[in-house]
């Protein structure tokens, strides 16, 4: 068993070495395909996470209070809010609490807020509604309550983002199918050339009583090697680039906008698994296609 596997592996690597330039071109082409796929994947995951995060807040309406309100007026606003249909609860967030939250969100850049003379953030109520339909009505109704300055409600943003997510998802799927087909064709052609180079040897093997799998194995393994090496290179490149992007942007701009990017380690690990599985699949399909007709002779 082990000697058979060892023999197949030995054949695979000697075959790759003999046809190294062809294999190299294949690896580069598949790597390029996987890089494009990786970019689609990263975009999709990030947009999807952002939408999911906002979706969690669909039932929360932030009601900002007029800065001239006194305690009694704020209380009156609370009572008016709780009297509306569909409101579950209203939690008071003072301007001091709001500043603490913002500082936490800004992380290393929080020192920038230390220079503020006055706290510019208003007092507010976080109004929790029972469902999405109630949220529309409540968001509209609270603006009419005296002592309310402004209302923030994410529904429009969520809907727009959902549309973007769906678009990115569809585009990713189309790109993925197209790139997979192209990749399979590239691998199939590389393996086909290798098969032709070994035509005489394969013919003799068949006369000697070699099984189809014995003949096939080195070619399939060769295809898998192309897929795996390409997935490692592309994932490594994406990891480096994505980490740099996170390092440059997230620390300063994105964090201030309250947007989190998916961590590089988590994302790249998943990307690696996805690319490796894809690579193995592409390699296997490509090589089976190219040798099938040859074995049938």
């Amino acid at each position: 068993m082990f000697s058979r596997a060892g023999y197949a592996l030995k054949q695979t690597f000697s075959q790759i070495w003999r046809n190294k330039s062809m294999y190299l071109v294949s690896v580069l082409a598949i790597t390029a395909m996987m890089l494009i796929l990786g970019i689609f994947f990263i975009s999709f995951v990030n947009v999807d996470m952002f939408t999911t995060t906002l979706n969690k807040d669909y039932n929360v309406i932030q009601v900002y209070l007029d800065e001239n309100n006194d305690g009694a007026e704020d209380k009156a606003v609370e009572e008016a809010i709780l009297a509306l249909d569909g409101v579950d609860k209203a939690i008071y967030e003072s301007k001091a609490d709001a500043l603490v939250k913002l500082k936490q969100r800004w992380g290393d850049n929080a020192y920038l807020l230390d220079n503020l003379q006055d706290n510019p953030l208003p007092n507010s109520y976080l109004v929790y509604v029972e469902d999405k339909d109630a949220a529309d009505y409540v968001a509209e109704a609270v603006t009419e309550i005296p002592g309310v300055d402004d209302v923030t409600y994410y529904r429009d943003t969520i809907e727009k983002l959902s549309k973007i997510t769906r678009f990115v998802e569809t585009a990713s799927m189309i790109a993925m199918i197209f790139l997979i087909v192209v990749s399979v064709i590239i691998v199939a052609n590389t393996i086909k050339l290798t098969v032709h180079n070994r035509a005489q040897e394969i013919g003799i093997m068949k006369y000697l009583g070699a099984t189809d799998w014995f003949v096939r194995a080195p070619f399939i393994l060769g295809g898998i090697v192309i897929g795996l090496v390409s997935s490692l290179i592309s994932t490594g490149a994406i990891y480096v680039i994505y980490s740099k992007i996170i390092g440059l942007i997230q620390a300063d701009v994105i964090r201030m906008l309250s947007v989190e990017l998916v961590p590089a380690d988590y994302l790249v690990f998943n990307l690696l698994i996805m690319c490796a599985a894809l690579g193995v699949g592409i390699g296997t399909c490509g090589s089976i296609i190219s040798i099938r007709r040859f074995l049938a002779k």
Partner: protein
Amino acid sequence: MIIFDNVSKKYGGNIGLTRASVHIKKGDFVFLVGPSGAGKTTFIRLILKEIDADSGSITVAGKDITRLSRREIPELRQKIGMVFQDFRLLDKKTVFENVAFAMEVVHKSRKQIKQRVPHVLELVGIADKADRYPHELSAGEQQRVGIARAIVNQPRVLIADEPTGNLDPKTAMEIMNILEKINVRGTTILMVTHAKDIVDRMNKRVVTIEGGRIVRDEQGSYGFMDDFDYDSDEEVDRYVF
């Protein structure tokens, strides 16, 4: 060992073999002769299950191969050794590696290969050239390697397809001596040839095919050929090695 029972094979409208019946027993040495296109190649391809018969049955080593599935073909071919006119050695492998290759293909261990290959090279008289590459050998030596590769897995039947076709008369006889030696050790041999001199000299069973039919099956000489054109240089060349 090989039984053809009323076997027919057509390629489109062309006849390959018509109602051929032959019984080759274990240990036989049989020459298969006949003009080009007579059906000799069809006969061999049917034994190797490269093609399927249209009708009739073919038994090889006790097994009806007309019913073999694709998966069972390797097992059949492991029972048959094949020697070619053009040797078909792998240029980038040494003599030893070419013969060892036949054992690797059927999953023999390295130890078995190390024991068996030198023994077989000795048997065909080429043990001293185990490290040479095919292009460093004469045609006769290359054919010895071809025979060694064919017998290294101890097949029940050895099919030699014009094994002396590319050799001079003296070398051809040396190859015939090796084949006879292998036959004496119990391997059934079926040899396709046009070499009248060899057939006559060996005095073995001769099966003659013409136009897809087996027209003669006798012990002894190549036989008189009614349609042999003694004025054609091409045809005369064909029968003198």
